């Protein structure tokens, strides 16, 4: 049959005004064979979740530099769940302190990436996580 591609939404919620980091990661994921939906700046959690639904993505990656990650990650997850999209792999990165990282991991965000993480590492993590999921899946699709 045909090959399935990993579909990723790369979003930039919050008010800070530059998206170079988000664009870079979008390009890196593309270069790893993923189909990346790039949505631009200033996305609200509702918009991100709605886009994720319309695009039937497997992964939502958020780039958050504004420091609002403690509210934005849970808000996006809430909006995803509201739309029956709890299965989406939600990850992201930004300037997240060790304590915040710890706190978020308690909330179930197992894998977030701090500043300076090699983009390669993020791409590889998404790839292997999705491959693992698809192997075990056959259920929800």
């Amino acid at each position, binding site marked *: 049959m045909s090959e399935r591609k990993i579909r990723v939404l790369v979003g930039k919620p919050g008010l800070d005004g530059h998206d170079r980091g988000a664009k870079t990661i979008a390009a890196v994921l*593309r270069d*790893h*064979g993923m189909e990346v*939906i*790039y*949505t631009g700046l200033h996305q609200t959690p509702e918009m991100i979740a709605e886009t994720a639904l319309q*695009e*039937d993505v497997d992964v939502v990656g958020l780039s958050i530099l504004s420091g609002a990650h403690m509210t934005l990650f849970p808000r996006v997850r809430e909006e995803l769940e509201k739309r029956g999209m709890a299965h989406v792999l939600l990850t992201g990165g930004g300037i997240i302190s060790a304590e915040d990282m710890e706190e978020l991991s308690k909330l179930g965000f197992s894998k977030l990436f701090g500043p300076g993480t090699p983009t390669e590492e993020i791409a590889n993590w998404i790839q292997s996580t999705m491959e693992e999921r698809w192997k075990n899946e056959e259920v929800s699709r």
Partner: protein
Amino acid sequence: MQSASEMAERLLAGDRAALARSISWAENADPRYPGLLGSIYPRVGKAWRIGITGPPGAGKSTLTNALVAHLRERGETVGILAIDPSSPFSGGALLGDRIRMEERTADPGVYIRSMASRKSHGGLARAATDACDVMDAFGFSTILMETVGVGQSEYDVVAAADTVVVVMCPGAGDGIQAMKAGILEVADVLVVNKSDLDGADRLALDLEDAVRMRDIRRPRDLAASARWAPPVVSTSATGAGDGIDALLEAVDAHRAWLEAADLEASRRHRRVDQVRRVVGERLEEELWGPRGKREQAETLLGNSKTPYDVAEEILNSVLESRTGAGPDAGDRTSTPGDASR
């Protein structure tokens, strides 16, 4: 695992997650898709499908966004399929058309789906047509398909629309280049976008001349009693949106013309194209998929035969096995050598 009939039920009940997943099934050639289409097919055919193509950066997405605003104002619901090319190297894609339509994300009367062209030629047009069928059955009154006009496979995509809009802009080529690129042959409506920029008037005149000189009968015209001369419309998709009304009028006029001519025949023609693409993909899979003829071809080539000899042999074996395998094989006993496969 969701079954085709469950999915069809959810889709027809207006479940947007089911709409999105159904398109994924089409895109991935999921074995459940044919069954799904079968269940929803009675509901396919109400939407008007508009294909929008043109060179990179001509303003297709911005124009689509402006068109949607007008369509929504007159009470229509809109499904959008935005196609961007896949990287031939990594197979990945960066799909960025949504950025220009951001304000539509929250509108429950609009659905936007990005699609990568992936690698296969017929496959893209097949999947795009499937996606339109799904959106059609879901109930959108208008469907817009955007694709970058750079190659045959993109033209195949928009040619599956009822009305094809070709968008040009100053600086992205002149009328002669448009003729060379075959753009005029596919266009039902020609748009000169960025009419706020220098050179737009010149381009519009060029295109009008080119249209007047064109004397081609396209397959999609065959059914029609009268010929359709594509109008040239100037628009400015940014800012106040000059010309968007005129563009919509041109699309409506083309629709009225096609409906008066022979819409059924035109659509039947495109259905046959879809059948061809499905047959092509199935054959490709049958012949060169994991259970295909690669090994046989390699073995045969080993005996110093030419590729033509081998192709002949493989073709014969396939055609024979087909005629020999059917329930009425007894009626065709003249086919020799069918017992071997």
